[in-house]
C-alpha cells in the first residue's frame, strides 16, 4: 500500500511543478505587446505553412512565447519547436530535417561542407546572463573575480572565508563554511558559456578548458538542467553553482556580482547582458561571442542564441512564413524577452539582423 500512496504523492508534486511552469509562460504570453497583432511586416501576410525547428533549450522558453504571439496574428502558420540541445538543432538543420535551428554556438567550419542545403544565415535573437548563484547565510552581496571563480570551481578553494574570496569582498564578513560546488550533470550550452568565460578571463588559473561538458572534480555536485543546479544550491548551505538568470530568479537564489573585462563588478541583469551584446566584435555573418565583452556595464558571463536558416529557401510558402517569423522575433518578439529574464538585442545588433533579412532568398 505504501508504494501506492508514495507514488500518487509524487505524481501530484510533478503535476504541480508542471502547472507552475506553464503559468509562468502564460503570464509571459499575456504581456505580448498589443502591437504584435498589427502586421509590422513589409511582406504580405504569409499563407498556410508549417515550420519546424529544433535545438537550443536555452531559448526554448522564448520560442514558445514567440510562437504563440506570432501564430495569433498569422493564423495560417503553424510552428513547432523541439528542444534537444544546440548540437541536435545544428545536426537537424544540416540534414534538412527542420526549417530552422536554434543554437547557442555557430557551426564548426569543418562541418559546413556537410550541410545539405548550402549557405547559412545566422540571426541572433536573444542574449542571456548566466549567474554564479550561492547559498551563504549572512552574505547579501558577494563580488567575485574570474580567477576566484576558477579556483572555487576547480576545488582549489574549499572554504568561504578563503583569502581570495575575502580580497574580492573587502569589509564583508565571510563564514568558515565548506564550499559545495554545484554543476551540470548533462551536456549544456550553459556550461559552455560558463567555461568559455573562465577560459578567457582566467586563463592562467582555469585548467578544465571549455565545452558542453568538462572534467569536473569528483567532489562536485551534479544537477540535471539549470533547475537541477538551482535546486542543489537552494537546498545546500555553502553551495555555489552557475545557473541561468531566469532559473536563478525563479528559485529566489542570491547571485554574485562578477568582475568584467573592464575591471568593474557587474550584477547579472537583462540590461547588463544586453550591454554585453553592445561591446563585442560582430563578424559580417553576425557570428560573435558575448562572453567577456568590453564595456563598464557589460556582464561578462553572457551568452547568445541564434536562429540559423538556409540562405536559399526551396519552398515559397515556408520561406515567406520563415521570413515573417524571423522579423517578428527581431522586432515585437524582443519585447517579450524581459518577462522571461532574457536580454533583448542591443539596437546595433538588432539593426544588423533586420538588414540581413533581405539576404534570405525565396523561390
Amino acid at each position: 500500500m505504501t508504494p501506492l500512496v508514495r507514488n500518487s504523492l509524487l505524481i501530484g508534486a510533478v503535476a504541480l511543478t508542471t502547472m507552475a511552469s506553464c503559468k509562468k509562460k502564460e503570464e509571459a504570453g499575456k504581456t505580448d505587446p498589443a502591437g504584435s497583432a498589427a502586421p509590422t511586416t513589409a511582406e504580405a501576410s504569409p499563407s498556410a505553412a508549417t515550420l519546424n525547428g529544433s535545438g537550443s533549450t536555452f531559448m526554448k522558453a522564448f520560442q514558445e512565447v514567440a510562437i504563440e504571439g506570432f501564430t495569433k496574428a498569422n493564423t495560417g502558420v503553424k510552428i513547432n519547436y523541439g528542444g534537444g540541445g544546440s548540437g541536435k538543432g545544428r545536426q537537424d538543420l544540416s540534414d534538412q530535417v527542420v526549417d530552422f535551428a536554434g543554437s547557442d554556438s555557430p557551426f564548426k567550419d569543418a562541418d559546413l561542407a556537410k550541410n545539405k542545403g548550402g549557405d547559412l544565415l545566422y540571426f541572433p535573437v536573444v542574449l542571456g546572463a548566466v549567474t554564479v548563484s550561492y547559498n551563504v547565510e549572512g552574505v547579501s552581496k558577494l563580488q567575485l573575480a574570474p580567477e576566484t571563480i576558477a579556483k572555487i570551481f576547480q576545488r582549489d578553494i574549499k572554504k568561504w572565508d578563503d583569502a581570495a574570496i575575502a580580497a574580492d569582498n573587502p569589509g564583508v564578513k565571510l563564514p568558515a563554511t565548506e564550499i559545495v560546488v554545484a554543476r551540470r550533470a548533462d551536456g549544456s550550452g550553459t556550461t559552455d558559456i560558463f567555461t568559455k568565460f573562465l577560459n578567457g578571463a582566467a586563463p592562467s588559473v582555469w585548467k578544465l578548458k571549455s565545452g558542453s561538458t568538462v572534467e569536473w572534480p569528483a567532489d562536485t555536485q551534479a544537477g540535471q538542467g539549470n533547475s537541477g543546479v538551482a535546486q542543489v544550491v537552494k537546498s545546500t548551505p555553502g553551495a555555489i553553482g552557475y545557473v541561468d538568470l531566469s532559473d536563478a530568479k525563479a528559485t529566489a537564489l542570491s547571485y554574485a556580482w562578477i568582475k568584467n573585462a573592464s575591471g568593474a563588478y557587474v550584477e547579472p541583469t537583462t540590461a547588463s547582458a544586453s550591454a554585453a551584446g553592445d561591446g563585442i566584435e560582430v563578424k559580417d555573418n553576425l557570428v560573435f561571442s558575448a562572453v567577456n565583452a568590453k564595456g563598464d556595464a557589460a556582464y561578462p558571463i553572457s551568452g547568445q542564441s541564434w536562429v540559423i536558416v538556409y540562405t536559399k529557401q526551396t519552398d515559397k510558402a515556408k520561406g515567406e512564413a520563415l521570413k515573417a517569423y524571423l522579423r517578428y522575433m527581431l522586432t515585437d518578439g524582443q519585447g517579450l524577452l524581459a518577462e522571461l529574464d532574457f536580454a533583448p538585442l542591443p539596437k546595433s545588433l538588432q539593426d544588423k539582423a533586420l538588414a540581413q533579412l533581405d539576404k534570405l532568398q525565396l523561390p
Partner: protein
Amino acid sequence: MAKDALELQGTGGGADQAFRWGVRAAAAMVLVVLAMVALSMTSRSGDVLGVMGLDFFGSRRWSEADELYGALPFLWGTLYTAVIAIVLAVPVSLGVALFVTQVAPPWLKKPMIYVLDLLAVVPSVVFGLWGVMVLSGELREVYLVMHRAVDWIPVLGDILGPSPQGRSFMTAGVILAIMITPIITSLSREVIETTPPGDKEAALALGATRWEMIRASVLPHSKGGLVAAVMLGLGRAMGETIAAALVIGSALGQTGINAFASGNSMPAVIANEWGEANDLHKSALVALAMTLFLLTIVINLSASAIVRRSMVRGRGAST
C-alpha cells in the same frame, strides 16, 4: 456439411500459407532490426575506436576538450550499481516469492500478486524523481551512520566508505533494486509454482517442516529458473537510464569501491550528454551504447542458457 468442411479446408490451405509467411516475416523482422542496430552502432562507433583503440575500455579520462574518451569508469559504474541492486533485491524477491507461494493464506495471495505486478509497471522516471527528491536527501544521513559503524572493518569500511554523497552508486543501487524486485519476484513465483505437488507432499509426508520442505523440494526444483530470474533482473538494472541518471551523481573518473561516492553509468552518460555532443563525442556515446548492448546480450544469453538447462533437468526429475 461434408462439402462445407472440405471447402473450408481448401481456403484453409491458402490461409495456412499466408500465416506461415506472415509469421516468418515477423520473425525475420526481429533479426533484421537487431542486425541493423548492431551494424549502424558498430560503424558509428568506429571513429572513437579508431582514435582511442582499446584505451576506450581501459582509460579513465572522459574529456570533450581534449577529445579523450575512456569508458572504464562508466563500465565500472554500470556493473557496480547493478551488483548492488542484485545484492539488495534478490533476498527480498525470493522472500516475497516464497511467502506468496508457500506461506501466505489464500485471501492474501491475490492482492499481494496484484500489488507486486503494479509495482513492476511503475515508469522508471517516477522512481528516479522520487529518488532524487526524497531518497537522496534522507539516505545521506543513513550512510553517515553506516560508515561510522563499519569504519574499522577492513573491506566493508572501504565499501561503505567515507564522505558519503546523497547521490551515489548506493542510492542508484537502491533505486534499481526497488525497480527490479517486482520482476525477479514475479518470475521466481512462477518458477516456484511449477514445483510438482507430489514432490512437496512427499517431503511433508516424511515429516519435514515447511522450511525443510522448501529446502528439500522447492528450491532444488526451481534453482535454474531462479538464477534466470536474477539474470533478467541484472539485465534490466544495467540498462536502466533515467532513474540512474538522476540519482548516481554524474561524477567522472570514479572507479573506486566506495559505494557512497558519486559515480556515473553508461546509460546515464548517454542520456545526459547526447543533446550537446559533437562528432567524436557522439561517436564515443554510440560506442558506450554498443558496449552496453553487448553486455546485456551476454547477460540475456546466459540467462536463457541456464533456463534451458534447468528445464531439461526439471523434466528429468519429475518423470
